[in-house]
């Protein structure tokens, strides 16, 4: 089976997963107002990493330094030779070094995500071909699904999955032009939600193959489905998210699921769509939560970051509260709560959706047995 061997999160809330988990459990948020940022005329609410916490030296961009530091921190926790040809690097990102794309056009090939990924892998002396999963907002879950498959098929012995994105005028003005951002802290699933906030983070998970899970986290399964509906608007029937959940629920029983860690971006249509999908999948009584009120939408990092915090939450018998939520504002009565709740279950489902009509769900279980 495929088990988690190590992890890390770097965000404004901390530089380890533990620091991040404790901050979130205590209800802290990294979201705040940013004004006067060059290239972004309209003020915006976001969670941004102060470069002073990044310690990697050398000719690396902020994106690369975040990835390298996160991976370095994770692999310190496990005894693997990351330079080995049996270690697969998977980078999950939507825009990587896009801020290198200036007026002068593209004079640095590191604006290409594959080239940046190679730079990151080579820092660790890994010469294998790195993969960049660029599947919009669901990249972080897709990248873990690719890791699971590569390990199950024996194509590698270890997979290092790192998700990250850096906010820049390119991304912020884009989301502003889509009228998808909230001018205040986001409110997932709330009736007064006004849109998303953007965030920065890097998150790493290292998976390996073991005969038994023992007391470790097992990645059970994952599925990716398309809405076949619209390139930017979520499906009105929650088709892709429902189909992904349905596939995952063939490998895990709803009765063992502590919670669904939803995408919960706090846009009108995303949260409504997820409530439909959760209801259709028969999970209406299962606690549902979103972590966007703590971090905003961290894009390429989101799928990894939210998976890791969910693991730490289950370890702590906790369903993390959905910060910003007050009154249910979706058409199906899903179980969302602003406060932390107690759980004794050992599994959870990560659900996520993105532009291009893509949706992913993955199930994780602590220990081998139910």
């Amino acid at each position, binding site marked *: 089976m495929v088990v988690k061997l190590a992890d890390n999160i770097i965000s404004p809330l901390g530089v380890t997963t533990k620091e991040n988990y404790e901050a979130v459990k205590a209800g802290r948020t990294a979201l705040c107002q940013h004004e006067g940022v060059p290239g972004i005329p309209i003020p915006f609410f976001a969670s941004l990493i102060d470069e002073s916490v990044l310690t990697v030296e050398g000719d690396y961009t902020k994106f690369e330094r975040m990835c390298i530091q996160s991976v370095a921190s994770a692999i310190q926790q496990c005894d693997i030779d990351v330079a080995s040809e049996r270690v697969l690097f998977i980078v999950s990102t939507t825009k990587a070094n896009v801020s290198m794309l200036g007026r002068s056009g593209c004079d640095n090939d590191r604006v290409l995500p594959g080239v940046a990924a190679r730079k990151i892998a080579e820092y660790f002396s890994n010469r294998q071909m790195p993969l960049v999963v660029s599947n919009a907002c669901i990249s972080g879950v897709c990248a873990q699904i690719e890791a699971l498959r590569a390990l199950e098929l024996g194509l590698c012995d270890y997979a290092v999955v790192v998700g990250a994105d850096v906010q820049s005028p390119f991304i912020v003005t884009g989301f502003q*032009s*889509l*009228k998808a951002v909230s001018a205040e802290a986001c409110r997932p699933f709330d009736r007064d939600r006004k849109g998303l906030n953007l965030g920065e983070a890097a998150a790493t998970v290292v998976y390996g193959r073991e005969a038994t899970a023992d007391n470790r986290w097992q990645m059970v399964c994952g599925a990716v489905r398309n809405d076949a509906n*619209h*390139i*930017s*608007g979520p499906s009105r029937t929650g088709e892709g998210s429902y189909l992904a959940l349905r596939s995952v629920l063939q490998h895990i029983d709803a009765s063992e699921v502590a919670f669904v860690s939803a995408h919960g971006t706090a846009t009108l249509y995303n949260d409504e769509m997820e409530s439909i999908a959760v209801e259709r999948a028969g999970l209406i009584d299962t606690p549902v939560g979103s972590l966007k009120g703590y971090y905003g939408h961290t894009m390429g990092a989101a799928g990894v970051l939210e998976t890791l915090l969910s693991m730490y939450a289950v370890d702590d018998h906790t369903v993390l509260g959905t910060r910003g939520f007050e009154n249910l504002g979706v058409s199906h009565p899903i179980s969302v709560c602003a406060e932390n709740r107690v759980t004794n279950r050992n599994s959870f489902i990560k659900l996520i959706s993105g532009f291009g009509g893509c949706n992913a769900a993955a199930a994780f279980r602590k220990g081998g047995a139910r």
Partner: protein
Amino acid sequence: MEELILKLKNEIIEVLNLEDIKPEDIDENAPLFGEGLALDSIDALELIVLMEKNYGIKIKDPNEGKDIFKSVAVMAEYISKNRTK
């Protein structure tokens, strides 16, 4: 007004990449969304940009757009009343 309507039709064709459509194909009184031109939510956002860029009209809430983009005639009427450039 007729001049503005024709100008607007040409601008809409350009910004929404309606290659197959000529100004005379657009009935200024027909609904812009929901039928005919097969426009979607992204087209509506692009029309919001057009309003600001060409006429200096800021539309903050996309819901406001729904009323303004009812038809080319309604748009033209709104522009002539509110334009700042």
